[in-house]
Structure formats: C-alpha cells, structure tokens
C-alpha cells in the first residue's frame, strides 16, 4: 500500500484545513489546473473563523502587507485586488533613525505597487467603514473556483486507513483522498499533526506585537502618505517597528525579543514617532493589540502520503511576505498533487524542492537582517549608508544599488540570495567603507572652517 502510486482522480475529495491565504490559494490553483486537465475535484475548505466579522475574532493577525512581487504575480494570475480590499497603495518606504529620516522609492517602477490590507474585516468598531477582508476576498475566489467552505473545527484526524479521516466533536465528517494542512502556526493544531504524521514538525516561531490605532483617514493620508514607515530607533527590546497606513487606521508592528504591550507604548511615546501623531495624542488605556507568532524557520518534512502542508505550516520567507510564501507553497503543492501524484515520493520529489528553496534563501535573509541590525546600532555606518541612499534618491534614473538593497529587503521584492550577492560586490563595500571614513573627516573640516 505504502509504495503504490496514488493520484488525484476525477471527482477526488480534497480537504483543506484552514481558509487563510494558503488554503484559498491551494483551492484556487488545484481547481484551475484540474479543470485544464479535464478533471473535477471535490474541494472542501474547513475554516472555523468568519473573516467578515470585525475585531480579533475575524482577524488572522498579521501586518497585512501584500508585497510588490505578489501584487504583480496575482495580477498575472487574474486576481486583481479590488479597492475595497486595498486600504492603501504603497509607493515608498520611509526609514527613520536617530540620525534622521529618508524616503526610498523603487528605482525600477514608479507606481503604487504594494497593497496594505486587513486580514479580517477591520478592527473592532470599524463596522461602517466598508472594509473587505483580504482573507475573505481570497476565500470567495476559491468558492468561485468550486471549493466549498465548512465552518467545522477539525479536532481529530485519523490516518489509520489508506485515506485520512476528519472528525469534529467526535463525529466523522469525511474521508479524503488528499489532506492539505493550511492552518498557519496554531500550536494546538500543529501538535495534532505532529502526532499523526511521522516526521512532521511545525516551524519555529517568534512573538511579535501588533496594534491598530485609529487616527482618521485625513490624518493618516497627510502624515503617513502612501508610505510604509520603518523605525530603527534602538528602543530596548525592539529590533525595528513599522507603521503601515490603512485608511482610517495605522497598523503598528513591532519585532523584538518577546515584545509586549509596553513596547508598543514605548514606541508610540518615542519622540521620533510622536511627531507623526496628533498633538496631545495619548495612548489609550485599552487599544487594539495582539501578539501573533510568526514563523522564522521551516517545518520538518511538510508532506506525507496523501498529505501536504502549505503556507506557514510549511515554509515561509523570513520576516517578509508571508502571504507570498503561502502563494508559492500552495501552488507548488497543488501542481504536484495534480501533475505528479499524492504519494510521499511525489511530494518529496516535486513539492519539497520549493520549500527547500525558501528555506535556503532564509539563511541569506538571516545574514542580511543581522547585518542591518548591526548597521542600525553603529551610528557611523548607518549615517554613511543613509547619506549614500539620500544622494541616490535625488536621481533615481541612475544606478541606485544601496537604495535597491534596502527596498528589496524590506518590500520582499527579491529573494534574499539575490540581495546578498549584490552586497558582496567589492565596489559596494569599498564605497560604503570609504563613506564611513570620509564622513567624520568632512564633518571635522567643516566644523573647523565654520569656527
């Protein structure tokens, strides 16, 4: 039984656990390809959460940024994000350090190419604002492609027979030809699969802190514009904080070692952030915040016979573009299942390389973020780097290697390996080191002249 070739036949039953982006993408691409191959699949997505409810109960707790490359890729796939889903089209990134601020735009395309979205239907109290959930938008696309959504919570999966059997509250709901784990990084659910799928282990995670603050659309548009703001302020316990404009709200995302609500408050009370807030703004006693975990590694063996894990339950890009990783893994798993088969060997041979490629790339990402952190804490280097970038931004028509590295790192537009290789260019290093040496010398000369 174990070695026999298993494929998805016409009318095969596919159960997808989780209706977030990874689950919906799998539903969309499996259904599309099956139709092209002249097959029909019986696709069921199990998602307990309703994304059309407001507040935490309908939210998948994420910064909600759809990267430049994913916006373009989805447009090519025929999935264009409607204005009700996109809260703000982003055209630039601002980097704020203790030495000043700098705006970086893409040197490649001059357009609003990044989308900010709410994963749910918006924070509590945003009922009348007409916000459409990004996750619900994708789920509806999956339904359009023929998937069926059930609100049951799968609390037991039995792998005793040849086909996985799904249970909820002690009742068997169905058996399936293929089980797709798209449950994100829910610890309880992950543990259940670790127990039944030999070799599977959920990816390691770190805690982040997030908060939604309502400032009004005029204020948000005026102060934050069409830009995501990254703050590298050396606040204890915070690696960096980002502020993402979304209509009436800003989303604050804090990355650090075990961030807490106090870290969000410390950030909001920092002078560099205060100037972006209305005068007299006080952090409310109760404000919308959460501490979602993000995956920072890879799941071990994210596949088995008749089973594949996708999205955060499998592999994801370090710190960036989680939705983009969901797209990549879900599509690769769907195509493997339909084009090659659903045996363990098929997934190892055709799906796992995609995960491994993401995992390998994250090694370069780790180096880049470590280098970025080091640079942000060593003033002469960060000052020199930002000076070079500032000069580059004055003439975007010319070559802008230093800006491009920051842009690609923080927007997730290029893979980390690609960015890393560019940082190894001898001229890149020599010019930066030269700037580090020359800057204090120039400063000393000017201060002597002006004395």
């Amino acid at each position, binding site marked *: 039984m174990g070695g026999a070739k298993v494929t998805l036949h016409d009318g095969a039953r596919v159960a997808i656990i989780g209706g977030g982006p990874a689950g919906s993408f799998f539903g969309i691409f499996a259904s599309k390809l099956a139709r092209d191959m002249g097959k029909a699949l019986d696709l069921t997505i199990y998602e307990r959460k309703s994304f059309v409810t407001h507040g935490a109960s309908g939210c998948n707790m994420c910064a909600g940024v759809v990267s430049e*490359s994913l*916006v*373009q*890729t989805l*447009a*090519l*796939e*025929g999935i*264009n*994000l409607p*204005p*009700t889903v*996109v*809260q*703000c*089209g982003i055209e630039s990134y601002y980097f704020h350090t203790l030495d000043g601020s700098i705006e970086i735009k893409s040197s*490649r*395309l*001059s*357009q*609003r*190419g990044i*989308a900010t979205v709410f994963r749910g239907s918006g924070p509590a109290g945003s009922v009348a604002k007409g916000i459409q959930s990004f996750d619900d938008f994708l789920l509806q696309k999956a339904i359009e492609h023929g998937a069926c959504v059930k609100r049951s919570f799968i609390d037991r999966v039995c792998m005793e027979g040849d086909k996985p059997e799904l249970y909820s509250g002690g009742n068997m709901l169905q058996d399936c030809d293929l089980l797709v784990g798209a449950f994100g990084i829910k610890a309880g659910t992950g543990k259940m699969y670790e127990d039944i799928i030999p070799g599977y282990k959920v990816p390691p995670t770190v805690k982040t802190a997030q908060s939604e603050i309502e400032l009004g*659309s005029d204020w948000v*548009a005026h102060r934050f514009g*069409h830009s995501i703001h990254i703050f590298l302020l050396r606040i204890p316990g915070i690696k960096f904080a980002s502020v993402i404009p979304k*209509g009436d709200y800003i989303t604050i995302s804090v990355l650090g070692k075990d961030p807490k609500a106090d870290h969000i408050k410390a950030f909001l009370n920092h002078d560099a952030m205060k100037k972006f807030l209305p005068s007299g703004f006080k952090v409310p006693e109760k404000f919308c915040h959460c501490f979602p975990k993000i995956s920072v590694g890879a799941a071990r063996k994210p596949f088995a016979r008749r089973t594949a894990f996708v999205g955060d339950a499998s592999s994801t890009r370090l710190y960036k573009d989680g939705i983009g990783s969901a797209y*990549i893994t879900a*599509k*690769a798993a769907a*195509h493997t299942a339909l084009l090659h088969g659903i045996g363990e060997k098929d997934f190892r041979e055709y799906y796992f390389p995609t995960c491994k*490629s993401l995992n390998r790339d994250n090694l370069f990402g780790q180096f880049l973020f470590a280098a970025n952190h080091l640079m942000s804490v060593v003033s002469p280097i960060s000052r020199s780097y930002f000076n070079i970038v500032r000069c580059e931004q004055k003439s975007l028509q010319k070559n802008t290697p230093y800006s491009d590295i920051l842009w690609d790192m923080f927007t997730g*537009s*290029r*893979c980390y390996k*690609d960015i890393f290789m560019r940082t190894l260019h001898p001229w890149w290093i020599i010019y930066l080191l030269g700037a580090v040496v020359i800057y204090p010398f120039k400063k000393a000369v000017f201060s002597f002249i002006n004395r």
Partner: protein
Amino acid sequence: MSEDSLLGRLYKDDEIIVEEGTQSRTMYVIQGGKVKVVKSAKGSETVLALLGAGDIFGEMSLFDASPRSATIKAVGEARVLAIEYEGLLKRIKMDPTLALRIIKQMCQRIRDLNGRLISAQRTMHHTSDTLLQLKKAEDVRIKDLEPKIITIVTQLQEKLHAITEQYVHQGESLHEY
C-alpha cells in the same frame, strides 16, 4: 472608489501609456478604467481595441524585445499596474505556469486576428465578385471603375472610424479580451 486604495499608476484621459515604436519591456495589467489600443497612420488614428479592468497589454515586447507595435492611451482616467520585466522573468523561471495566462491571452488574440483576417478575405472575395459582375453587366474596364472604388472605400473608412470613436467615447467595449 477611494483613490488611495488603487494600485499602479494613474493616467489621465488620452494620456499615452505606451507609445508605438518605442523600446520598453514592461507589461501592464489594468486595475481600473479603460484604455484604447491605437495605430496611427498618415495623421489618422485607428482604434484596434478597447481594454478594461483585469486586461493585460504590452506582453508582446516581453518575448520579442521589438519596439511597441501600437500606442496605448487612457480613455478617461485609468489606473494601470506595471509588471517589471526582470522580476517577472525570475518568477517565470521559478514557476513557468505563471506564463500560461499570458500565453492564453496571446492565443485568444491570434484566434481573434484569424477571425478578422477571414472576414477581410471574405470581403475581398465579395468585392472582386461584385466587380466582375459589374464588368460583365456594364461592359466596362476595371480600371475605369477605380475612382468609384476609391471613393467607396474612403467613405467606408471614415464611417468605420466614426463608429469606433463613438464606441470609445461611450465607454463600450469594442472587443473584450
């Protein structure tokens, strides 16, 4: 529709997005509004197609690196998302199926062009049959009919151009890709 929540770049009415004869390898996806595909010759403009939200254009230069084959202009305000060439190539290398939709659209356009070609050939055959009948009936040389034919064709061209312009300004789709 909030202007803040639209992606891509905003083009004003009649603004040129892509100019015929220029070199560029960017392709585009329409996010909102409409654009027209026009071909210019001897000072007059012929509208080849009207495209709307979700449609792709500029994909030919991705593959053959030739100059743009037609001009694309906004009809009213249009928001268009540019797809960067280098990034797209890298993504297609990782996932070749990403090119399928572009290929499907190109196939659709080839089918459409074939349809137009057949229609044009039928018209030509019809015209030549009519001329032969006329020659037999009136016993005149084809050359003598030339001024009359030119007048008829010019009138037809003007009529077609007027209809096309009317469609474009009414915002109706002449041809949905």
